[in-house]
């Protein structure tokens, strides 16, 4: 009798122990899969699903499976807040990767800081990591870096006076603000500054104003979404011959398809991901970007985008941090994230630190140009 009881007890304990060990590691995500920012959230969602699947196929992390719990915040900051509360309180996730837009990200920062959950944001503005916040990290390059990269290229071409045109969205306004701030540092003068609305379909009025401003040598469109494609088409229609620069927000094949012939000669700063196949073999990023590019295209039959790449980097950084910390203790994951150096991602080589929760510098941005309907690296 006693032996039977002991056996049953042992079996129960063993089962319980195995059950606990089999608790999945939960990755929480909130992405703008629908709504105005679906351009961002859709590839991010697909990337996270694909790579959680691949990680699990390779045995998971720390012997446990990964579970992705993701919600569609549709670019709405309040929905983002509610879903992050749900992820933290109800779903009890171990780490959060998400926040397609800056507005959604900033709205949830107080929540993750208070609850102490590591959060890797996929949004662009520099304000996310400056000032640095204990639990908040990010993978995309900042909009300030984009401005600087463009200004460097402009100076190299002897350009000093430029026109700026931007849209009404958060991305546009943030990047415009950063460009205005750092332009003097690069001896660039912004002599015209126009804006268009969110759903606008004709920017000829604004471009005409820029065209008629004396001394404009180039135009920078700090834009995102459909605006830049229309600006590019209008640019050609108005026969504006000066160099046109776009932002990293439209770094995708889609943009070239949408703008058509007008895109020829347009330059923008972007991650190496877009020119993966043509990178020299010696390039440190080549293996990672070619791998991601091929796997994503094979699975989803659509062109790869830098936004999906940021989600990839976010997931892999989180995975690496979990591996290094050997547990799902949130503070341990956080410190491990902070200590990552030399990680090669789709966005660049990442060197995190206690003061730098993004880890990229301006060199992570390559300058690309549209040539014969494709992206090429500008030497």
């Amino acid at each position: 009798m006693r032996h039977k009881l002991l056996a049953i007890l042992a079996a129960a304990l063993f089962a319980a122990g195995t059950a606990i060990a089999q608790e999945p590691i939960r990755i929480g995500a909130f992405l703008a899969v629908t709504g105005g920012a679906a351009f961002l959230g859709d590839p991010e969602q697909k990337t996270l699903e694909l790579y959680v699947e691949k990680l699990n196929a390779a045995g998971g992390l720390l012997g446990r499976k990964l579970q992705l719990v993701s919600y569609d915040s549709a670019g709405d900051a309040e929905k983002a807040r509610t879903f992050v509360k749900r992820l933290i309180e109800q779903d009890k996730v171990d780490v959060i990767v998400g926040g397609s837009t800056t507005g959604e990200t900033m709205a949830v920062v107080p929540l993750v800081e208070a609850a102490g959950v590591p959060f890797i944001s996929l949004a662009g503005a520099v304000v996310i990591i400056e000032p640095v916040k204990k639990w908040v990290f990010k993978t995309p390059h900042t909009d300030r870096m984009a401005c600087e990269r463009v200004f460097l290229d402009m100076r190299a071409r002897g350009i000093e006076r430029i026109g700026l045109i931007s849209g009404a969205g958060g991305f546009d306004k943030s990047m415009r603000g950063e460009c205005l701030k750092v332009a003097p540092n690069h001896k660039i003068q912004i002599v015209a500054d126009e804006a268009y609305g969110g759903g606008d379909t004709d920017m000829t009025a604004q471009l005409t104003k820029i065209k008629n401003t004396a001394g404009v040598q180039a135009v920078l469109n700090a834009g995102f979404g459909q605006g830049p494609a229309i600006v590019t088409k209008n640019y050609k229609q108005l026969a504006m011959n000066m160099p046109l620069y776009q932002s990293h927000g439209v770094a995708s094949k889609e943009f070239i398809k949408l703008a058509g012939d007008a895109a020829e000669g347009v330059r923008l700063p972007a991650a190496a991901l877009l020119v993966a196949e043509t990178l020299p073999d010696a390039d440190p990023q080549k293996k990672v970007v070619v791998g991601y590019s091929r796997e994503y295209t094979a699975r989803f039959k659509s062109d790869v985008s830098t936004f999906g790449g940021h989600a990839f980097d976010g997931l892999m950084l989180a995975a690496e941090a979990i591996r290094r910390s050997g547990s799902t203790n949130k503070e341990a994951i956080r410190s491990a994230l902070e200590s990552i150096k030399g990680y090669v991602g789709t966005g660049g080589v990442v060197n995190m630190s206690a003061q730098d929760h993004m880890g990229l510098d301006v060199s992570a941005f390559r300058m690309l140009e549209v040539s014969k309907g494709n992206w090429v690296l500008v030497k």
Partner: protein
Amino acid sequence: MDWKTPRTGGLALLAAVIVLLPLALANNYWYEVAILIGINAIVCVGLNLLIGYAGQISLGHAGFFGLGAYGSAILTARYGWPPVAALAATTAGVALLALAVGRPILKLKGHYLAMATLGMGIIISIVVVTEDRLTGGPDGMSVPAFTLFGLGLAGERAWYWVIGAALLAAVWVALNLIESPAGRALRALHGSEVGAQVSGIDATRAKVGIFVISAVFASLAGSLTAHYAGFITPGKVGFFHSIELVTMVVFGGMASTFGAVIGAATLTLLPQLLTVLKEYEMVVFGAVMVATMVFLPRGFLPSLMLEIKKKRK
């Protein structure tokens, strides 16, 4: 005290629900959902007075909500005002604006009124998005916590009770308004504006009055939301939110204060429950809206009450 009349019976039931609900709320996420329902309900109760009782329409009420939210946010965050003073000033400001705008707008009728309120809402949201130095633009701005005589109000549980009390107050005010002479004047207006005028009712004054009151409800709800969330973005000021609010009122039952509360509760809860549907969410949500309005054109609560009355017979 007659427990069966809407005033006391319904109010007591609502109070009971608010007091007992925390027993069912498992964690802070559910408290958050409850608080969101409460906030939407406050706006809807006010909006229902305008749409259901006075028979007007507003497709721009998110504008008042947004003004309340941003008013409180800007005064406290950028100018360091104490939150209570900011709340009072913002509410007064919105009331004055509603008064000024209401008089010309409410001369319009039907679809013209709908378009005018729509335009008003859109203008407010464009201003909020464009004046980014003041409002933080499309990315929004942080809002300091609410403090009363030095005591901070923070955390879901504390806010739950504040919003619950505010909702009860709002419903009480609405119910009293409806039963008052002013309320009866409103209902006469809804029946026939010319008839009411012939009976000596100043139609314009009554309509503008209720417009201002519903704007104040929305503004207060907005200010409270700003402090609760600690962050506000222009999303809440826009056209889609205005439509959401009208849908909640119509769904719950027009000319029914408790219907407005139920409408707010259902349509706040629905997206949370529909997340499992992922990419089908929009389709299902739209289908639900259409089906409900086609089969229950008077709204949920009045239809329910009708069924109950039928069964009683």
